């Protein structure tokens, strides 16, 4: 049997980066991906709704199994093959993908650095646990990743929203310009969304052509994902072997308390295969990583702390405002949604003593955009019919506007956890996760405050509120998003009806948090398990708190730092 230098389980943002780092240093790496290989040339395309049989709703036989839409279901997950369960009080929906490249094939591309007010929040407000790393620890890795993948954005000099190494920012459309002016009038800082989306050629990749299909898969590789950015150069080293359709079932240990390798099951044949390596890296997404650790030993592998599976979090979703900006009503048709972006209003509360709120701790980030979208979701809600109604729809179509919650910090609580379901198994006979997940009073208060602020901004911009979806297409809660499907047997409306329904952000983190002391967590600051020296876990598992930034860049920075640590142990 071939013994690889390293096995990487998973091919998403973290797995792809780890493959790049390790192969470039000469390691022989085997990457195992549970899903299929995706070919952008055939699987990603520009198609209008009327070119699709079901106008985007999807082939019903397939869409019964997949979340997403007719355009992007291939880069989501087969929920029938891959069930999960939830406790009765849980309304959480786990948005997933299984394919080469993972969720980065359809992600929102937000690429924000976290700040020390997030890493060290516990020291400031007394809740939870500080991270075992600081901004200074991660800054070199943020720099390295941004330089390689290409991030468009504008420097703002805000300590709570650290600047990066940016490509030129994308221009603002009319609605975003109006919202920017409104932010200025309110004394709030705003900036163009920082995105792993190229505004000029970069590292051999073309710039964005503003088609707006990002959440359906980028056909030219202008947005970051492993199949366009990290895996091609890793493959060029000749040191990377990728096996797709390989469902890892467990990590195997040797008698010296080291990971021996993994056992995976061939998706099509159900045949079990053992592979060995000197280093084992789990990068299969946060909860899948934890599932594998739970599957690999009684009581969970690397679980001397007893904390494996606990402190699950996902940035709180919910709230938002949609409507129109009368200033834009009746204007000419413009390419408003071609960049699938918007403006960001960084958190400005609870970042220091001066901005402290007594009603709640932590904060949130707002996004705003507007203008044309492909389908006028609001149209059926406009009273009337006939020629005047048609004119009204067209008039409002270009004036649409929305403010949504880009990420609100969820407090870490031990009573949010995952475990193996004692009965339900996936299509390969592997026990699935059972999720226990509720929100705290602080989470509700945070979203109530966001809603007030969002409405304040909308009014300042002169907006007219109308019922309609708040999240843009592909974002959590929006059309084509992977978070739309409930767990097997999940009950509806389990939340307290008197409170605003909260959701997730497909930013799940925690369940194997980092800690200085092995008794306080599963991983050290390098994402190496405290208990098993040749086992690393890359993803959101290490996060002791969610922060309010989109987590992917920080997951990748932790991966880069962890790989450097691993490589230092091989010499």
């Amino acid at each position, binding site marked *: 049997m071939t013994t690889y230098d390293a096995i990487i389980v998973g091919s998403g943002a973290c797995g792809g980066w780890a493959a790049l780092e390790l192969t470039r240093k000469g390691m022989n790496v085997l990457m195992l991906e549970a899903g299929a290989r995706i070919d952008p040339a055939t699987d990603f395309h520009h*198609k209008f709704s009327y070119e699709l049989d079901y106008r985007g709703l999807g*082939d019903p036989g397939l869409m019964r199994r997949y979340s997403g839409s007719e355009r992007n279901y291939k880069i989501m997950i087969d929920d029938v093959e891959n069930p999960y369960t939830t406790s009765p009080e849980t309304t959480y929906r786990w948005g997933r993908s299984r394919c080469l490249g993972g969720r980065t094939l359809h992600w929102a591309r937000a690429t924000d650095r976290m700040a020390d007010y997030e890493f060290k929040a516990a020291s400031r407000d007394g809740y939870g646990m500080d991270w075992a790393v600081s901004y200074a620890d991660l800054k070199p890795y943020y720099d390295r990743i941004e330089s390689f993948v290409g991030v468009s954005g504008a420097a703002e000099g805000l300590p709570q929203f650290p600047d990066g190494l940016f490509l030129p920012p994308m221009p603002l459309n009319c609605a975003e*310009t109006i919202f920017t002016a*409104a932010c200025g009038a309110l004394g709030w800082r705003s900036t163009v969304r920082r995105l792993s989306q190229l505004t000029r050629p970069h590292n051999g990749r073309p710039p964005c052509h*503003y088609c707006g299909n990002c959440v359906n898969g980028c056909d030219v590789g202008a947005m970051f994902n492993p199949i366009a950015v990290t895996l091609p150069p890793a493959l060029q080293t000749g040191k990377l072997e990728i096996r797709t359709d390989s469902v890892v079932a467990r990590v195997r240990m040797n008698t010296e308390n080291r990971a021996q390798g993994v056992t995976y099951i061939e998706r099509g044949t159900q045949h079990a295969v053992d592979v060995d390596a000197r280093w084992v890296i789990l990068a299969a997404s946060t909860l899948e990583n934890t599932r594998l650790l739970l599957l690999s030993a009684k009581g969970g592998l690397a679980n001397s702390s007893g904390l494996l599976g606990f402190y699950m979090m996902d940035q709180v979703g919910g709230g938002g405002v949609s409507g129109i900006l009368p200033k834009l009503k009746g204007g000419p048709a413009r*390419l*408003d949604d071609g960049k699938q972006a918007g403006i960001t209003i960084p958190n400005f509360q609870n970042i220091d003593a001066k901005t402290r709120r007594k009603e709640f701790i932590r904060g949130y980030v707002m996004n705003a955009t507007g203008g044309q979208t*492909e389908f006028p979701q609001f*149209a059926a809600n406009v009273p009337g019919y006939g020629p005047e109604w048609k004119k009204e729809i067209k008039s409002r*179509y270009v004036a649409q506007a929305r403010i949504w919650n880009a990420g609100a910090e969820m407090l870490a609580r031990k009573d949010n956890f995952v475990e193996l379901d004692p009965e339900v198994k996936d299509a390969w006979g592997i026990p699935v996760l059972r999720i226990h997940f509720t929100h705290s009073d602080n989470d509700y208060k945070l979203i109530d405050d966001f809603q007030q602020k969002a409405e304040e901004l909308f009014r300042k911009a002169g907006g007219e509120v109308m019922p309609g979806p708040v999240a843009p297409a592909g974002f959590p809660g929006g059309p084509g998003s992977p978070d739309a499907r409930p767990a097997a047997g999940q009950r509806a409306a389990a939340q307290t009806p008197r409170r605003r329904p909260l959701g997730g952000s497909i930013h799940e983190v925690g369940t194997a948090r980092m800690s200085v002391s092995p008794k306080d967590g599963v991983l050290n600051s390098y994402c190496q398990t405290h208990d098993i020296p040749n086992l690393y876990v890359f993803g959101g598992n290490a996060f002791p708190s969610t922060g309010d930034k989109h987590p992917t860049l920080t997951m990748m920075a932790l991966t880069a730092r962890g790989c450097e640590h691993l490589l230092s142990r091989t010499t």
Partner: protein
Amino acid sequence: MLRLAAASVALPGAVAFLSPWLDAARRDDYEPKFFDTEDFAALDAFTAILIPTDDTPGAREARCAQFIDFLLQASSTVDPTVAQQWRAAMQALRDAGFHAADAKGRAALVAAMARPERERGATHPAYFAFRLIKQQSTFAFYTSRQGLIECLEYKGNSYNAAFPACDHPEHHTL
């Protein structure tokens, strides 16, 4: 409802079964599969009142009734509740006299059915049918080429050298 309708075609082989019909839905010799001939004609007329042809195409050019029939035929194979809802809606139209009315009478009936949308306290026994057909017609129309491109002039889903920045000084100030 649309998602329910679409998601309900879950029987093995349903898609293959429907494919020839879907092709037929795009041709002029269309024969409805969910609605009977009278109901289909009534639906077609209703959608044309809701979304008429004016200086831009309307529901007729976009073949809204055909698309609605397609979705309902698909859903009715496995989900009787969607079919029941639509049968009840068409019966409500029939009871209101829509099927038998001339063009002027139909226009008056739709106006009466639509009143509760704008007038608080107003009621009509076929209001639910109006809302159901309006929702489905809106989707069918604005996902068609006629609605999306020719009427709304949607600019996305295209290859562009640059993203057009706002060039309106008046948008930079409130």
